[in-house]
């Protein structure tokens, strides 16, 4: 069975959408659901699903794009690191166009002679370190629970090899604490931009299949238990998403919010304990800044002391600089579901994919970029 095609099957998706519509009419109220995964964002727009959703189902695109939530102070540090003599930056591709507060990106640093190499896996970065013993390779550790285990694995490999010219700048973010913050718990969000976010109404969550693959369901259960909000782990094909939305509406009708696994062909309810063990071995949980959301306690990963030799923060004595909020930028409100990208006064004017002001416009997976690229003006 060819999964990639069958879950796109037009006839099946249309039938599912019709059922979803009927179910929603039965419920009789609007449902605002939020996804928190860039792959969901892209899939919903790219498949055209967004244009087919029943009008009572409102899609909100939350903080699921790892590039977008990487804080501007971290991005500024990427560039400082890249400009150091003898440093090679190894990075996932979509970080290299992200602008720092001064508007410069790794692309600009590269044009000024910095050595920046795109890699597909942190192990590629180790290879670069092996091939360039005279240079120091710094891997930019960005992403959620999904990418972090592979990076932890690379650190363990580097330690085993005794590689002394390889380090990781860990900017990892954790999804469940961000969801906590989004649900408006006053003790979780600290800065002012986040405060306004707490008033957004989110009726249900489409949980990220990739992250759940590692974490399982347990870390998400608070969503239903504490906030009485249905949440379903969803796959990424259109049929997966429609099915998950159907399950959300069913839960709403039944009035019993639950956290359920709608992606059983990939996700085990218990997640991947081996991946979590390796995460725990290398990283400890720390407070961290999210671009657009501010400081969220216990939502980041720091490299443990025993791996300090491979921690770029230690090696280069990195102190994140204070950055000013971007004037006029409403990314915090977009990420927390308060407004649509097009309601931001900068959207499409001062802030475009060519010249992004805010974080949500910087990556193709960002809410604003997806809106700009896929939605635009076709709805005539």
């Amino acid at each position, binding site marked *: 069975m060819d999964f990639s095609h069958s879950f796109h099957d037009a006839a099946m*998706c249309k039938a599912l959408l019709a059922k979803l519509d009927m179910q929603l009419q039965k419920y009789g109220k609007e449902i605002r659901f939020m996804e928190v995964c860039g792959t969901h964002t892209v899939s919903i727009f790219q498949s055209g699903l967004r244009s*087919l959703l029943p009008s009572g189902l409102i899609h909100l695109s939350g903080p699921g794009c790892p590039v977008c939530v990487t804080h501007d102070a971290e991005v500024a540090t990427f560039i400082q690191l890249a400009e150091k003599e003898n440093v090679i930056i190894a990075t996932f591709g979509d970080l290299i166009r992200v602008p720092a507060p001064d508007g410069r990106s790794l692309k600009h640093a590269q044009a000024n002679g910095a050595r920046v190499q795109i890699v597909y896996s942190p192990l590629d970065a180790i290879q670069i370190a092996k091939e360039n013993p005279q240079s120091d390779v710094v891997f930019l550790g960005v*992403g959620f629970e999904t990418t972090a285990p592979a990076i932890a694995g690379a650190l363990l490999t580097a330690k085993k090899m005794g590689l002394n010219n390889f380090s990781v700048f860990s900017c990892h973010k954790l999804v469940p604490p961000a969801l906590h913050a989004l649900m408006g718990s006053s003790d979780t969000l600290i800065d002012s931009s986040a405060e306004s976010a707490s008033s957004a109404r989110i009726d249900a969550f489409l949980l990220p299949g990739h992250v759940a693959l590692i974490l399982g369901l347990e870390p998400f259960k608070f969503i239903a238990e504490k906030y009485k909000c249905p949440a379903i782990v969803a796959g990424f094909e259109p049929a997966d998403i429609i099915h998950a939305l159907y399950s959300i509406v069913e839960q709403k009708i039944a009035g019993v919010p639950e956290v359920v696994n709608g992606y059983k062909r990939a996700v085990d309810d218990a997640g991947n304990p081996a991946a979590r063990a390796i995460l725990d071995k290398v990283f400890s949980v720390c407070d961290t800044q999210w671009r657009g959301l501010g400081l969220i306690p216990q939502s980041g990963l720091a490299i443990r002391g025993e791996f300090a030799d491979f921690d770029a923060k230690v090696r280069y004595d990195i102190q994140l600089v204070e950055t000013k909020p971007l004037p006029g930028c409403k990314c915090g409100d977009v990420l927390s579901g308060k407004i649509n990208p*097009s309601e931001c006064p900068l*959207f499409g004017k001062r802030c475009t994919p060519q010249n992004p002001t805010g974080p949500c416009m910087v990556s193709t997976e960002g809410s604003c970029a997806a809106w700009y690229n*896929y939605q635009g003006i076709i709805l005539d």
Partner: protein
Amino acid sequence: MKLLLDAGSGGRASMRLINDIFVKHFDNDILAKMDDAALLHMSSPIAMSTDSYTVSPLFFPGGDIGTLAVHGTVNDVAMLGARPKYLSCAFILEEGLELEVLEKIVISMSSALSEAGVKIVTGDTKVVPKGACDQIFINTTGIGEIIPPTCSLGSPSGHNAKEGDVILLSGSMGDHGLTVMAARDNLSFVSDIASDSASLNHMIERLMLEVGDIHVLRDPTRGGVATTLNEIAEQSCVRCTLFEDRLPVKENVRAGASLLGLDPLYLANEGKLLCIVPKDKMQQALEIMRADEKGKDAVCIGEVSALPSSKTDNQSGNNTGHEKTGQVVLVTLMGGKRLLNMLEGAPLPRIC
């Protein structure tokens, strides 16, 4: 043997390089005269195009920098509804380049030339110090005779797409872009793919002579089909609508691109053409394309319509940021609609 700086000095070493490699393989009577310029006899209006080629790696499944330098310029000239005749060719070579590598590239250029029926009639070689270029850069400029158009709009042009036209694509998308990316980065999960690098001038000549009413011809190279159609939509002030279920993509290209978070619509092609014709010419044009091995998978992928009257308002009246004068819309497999915008730069693989 390695190339020395001397080979670009204009002295005997230069002459040896030119005679032993370039004249030997590009052999033709015009080049053999070795004058400062080539003497050409042409009677019709002329189409001219130039392009510089840099690619890493130099060799990849389905082609190399040399085949690209021939096919790319031949195709660009042909897209104007012209019969490409002559190319110029300038090499910038890095000191230390293996001569065997250079000769291998020149040999494959030579066979690409004879297949296209085109001659290299003048050339230039520079050798630069190590590090000043990446092994080999090639520039080719091509000229060709315009085939007298029978279409009232004149020769094919990006400005000529009209409401009611259909959009034809000569074959699968993204083969070249993904092949080069996989070869450059040793992507082991991408297998069994090859560049589609090929010259399309013979197919175009038949289209021009037999169909005649060809509104637009374009080769969707860098930026892929989506970018090229955006250019056409803007130039012609129209909307192009594509149907996802008709888009030809090879299964392994689809799978490889999907893993990297890339969309084949934005990946480069080097042996494909987009042909926009009035609907009543569709069948004839498709038959001609399919009769050619390089167009055997040709299909109609979409249609041209007028732009919606209100271009700046969306459903909710919000600011959309799109002030363009053309647009490309994709009707997805599920029957949904979305925009196909132009990308800012090269597609980048995603984090997860």
